[in-house]
């Protein structure tokens, strides 16, 4: 059962949402005000999904938790009481998992949450792919620089420098990018 946390200053206002979630079979582990203890609550209760008011000042607190736990982020769903449809569409495109406006009927809650989680997963996968691509790109740059340093130091040509770098990496059981980084750092200190 998914654990849901609701954050809203006005607990009365989100009571129906809480009831709907319970009826739909979610475990509402916390229904908090914009509070001070949000940080601890998140750490201790480990919600699977957080539902928060778009205009809540506590959004930055959640943001920090997300960044700090970059390897283990969780979906955040927002609700708003006065948003118009166009704005919600834009916000969703901007990366927010899902927006709920006002109260939504029980039968629609499940699909909305499912969609939010699906979007979140999709986004997470994209990020992983992007990070991998960035790492590869920066590794290639490092290798180029290290190669240049070796060429200059040893007065050898590019192919020889690359072969040297590769065999050193193999000997040291290191990735060629990581070795290049070490060489560059060493060169910065020594040269």
């Amino acid at each position, binding site marked *: 059962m998914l654990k849901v946390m609701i954050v809203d200053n006005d607990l009365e206002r989100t009571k129906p949402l809480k009831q709907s979630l319970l009826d739909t079979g979610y475990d509402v582990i916390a229904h908090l005000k914009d509070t*001070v203890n949000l940080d601890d609550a998140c750490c201790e209760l480990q919600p699977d999904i957080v539902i928060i008011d778009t205009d809540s*000042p506590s959004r*930055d*607190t959640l943001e*920090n938790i997300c*960044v700090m736990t970059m390897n283990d982020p969780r979906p955040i769903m927002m609700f708003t009481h006065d948003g118009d449809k166009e704005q919600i569409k834009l916000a969703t495109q*901007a*990366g927010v998992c899902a927006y709920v406006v006002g109260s939504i009927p029980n039968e629609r809650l499940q699909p909305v949450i499912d969609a939010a989680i699906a979007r979140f997963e999709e986004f997470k996968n994209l990020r992983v792919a992007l990070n991998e691509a960035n*790492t590869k790109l920066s590794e290639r740059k490092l290798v180029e620089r290290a190669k240049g340093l070796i060429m200059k130091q040893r007065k050898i040509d590019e192919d020889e420098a690359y072969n040297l770098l590769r065999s050193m990496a193999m000997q040291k059981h290191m990735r060629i990018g990581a070795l290049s980084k070490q060489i560059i750092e060493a060169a910065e200190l020594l040269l």
Partner: protein
Amino acid sequence: MNTNDTALNLEVKPTVDNSRRDFFRTTMAGAFGAAAVMGIVPKGISTNAYAAGSDAPEITEVKIGFIPLTDCAPIVVAAEMGFDKKYGIKITPSKEASWAAIRDKTVNGELHAAHVLYGLVYGVQLGIGGQQKDMAVLMTLNHNGQGITLANQLKDKGVKDGHSLKRLLDNENRDYTFAQTFPTGTHAMWLNYWLAANGINPIKDVKTIVVPPPQMVANMRIGNMDGYCVGEPWNARAIYDKVGYTVATSQDIWVDHPEKVLGTTAEFVAKNPNTSRAMIMAILDACRYIEATENRAKVAKLISGKAYVNAPEEVIAGRFVGDYDNGIGKKWKDPNFMKFFEDGKVNFPYLSDGMWFLTQHKRWGLLKSDPDYLAVAKKINQVQLYTEAATQLGISVPKDVMRSSKLMDGVVWDGKNPAAYAASFKIKA
């Protein structure tokens, strides 16, 4: 209608069929848009546009988001005192509850621009903790005027500076909690830099949480954290409310450090270069007004209102003119108080300022690998557009896009070798 369309329509003959016309419009507008993003305005075209009088703002009503802080003053003054009208636009300030809301609304276009943390803009550009979006910094809004507050209980334990805090942390076996305002923002970086310069690892030795600026004091009062880093007036407010004291100002960490910027998306700038320029001009004019000592009291009164900072005028006014009191017996006149103009030196979007935040993001593990520091800064900071705006106002523009500063630990940052600089710190994530 934007300039690109105007310029192109003149060239398209009425006999050209629509599909061809559309082709021209989209491809050429795209090419010009890309040029604008890179800060390049084709010479002939911009001159023609001016001559034809088509430097009129593409949109005349702009909504600019802000967070209740003393340094939101340029936005408020530009709107409230009519600086916006001088440049053909109407600015509507929009008070927001969180930096996350500022970011989302700027990214999705609900806000046209915002008073925003320098580092946040760069974080969005690199997709830290959220969706990537190409961003733009139009100008810097202020230098200095942030601070680090400690709870009064620490005073009783003899903490009066970074060294004594380090000693306390070494000798006491409990978790100390510090708050800042946004993971990629400026306060996170000032707090981390200050702790690290005092031998405290902000990642390993203390717990860090985020609390919205206006709620800092209330949170400290109930013992939720031992210290925080935030913009004024929320450090002065802790002293006023007798819950904490100022252990360091941000200008102690870096004299004339970059702080808030006028931020928007690259897309907005590409589509609305004239509106963007008009916003810079209006706000630059407002910054010049605020800088004058004789105007500061009036501005403090204006921004203290409920619609803006919502804090007693007296809490804002003192530090706003450099009258500092640290709350534990030291009073001084700080020459490096919150600056908004200094003949445009504050406002120029130095590339080295933007790059610094990236070096700290790398240092603290928010970036896993070195980005192309200079390329990112060149893309975000709208030096060309700013230069056009400043020149029209007769405000001088520095020749060099880099500046050199010595921070509290004696280390110099000048924008050169950013990767080596980022890797040079002993204390890091």
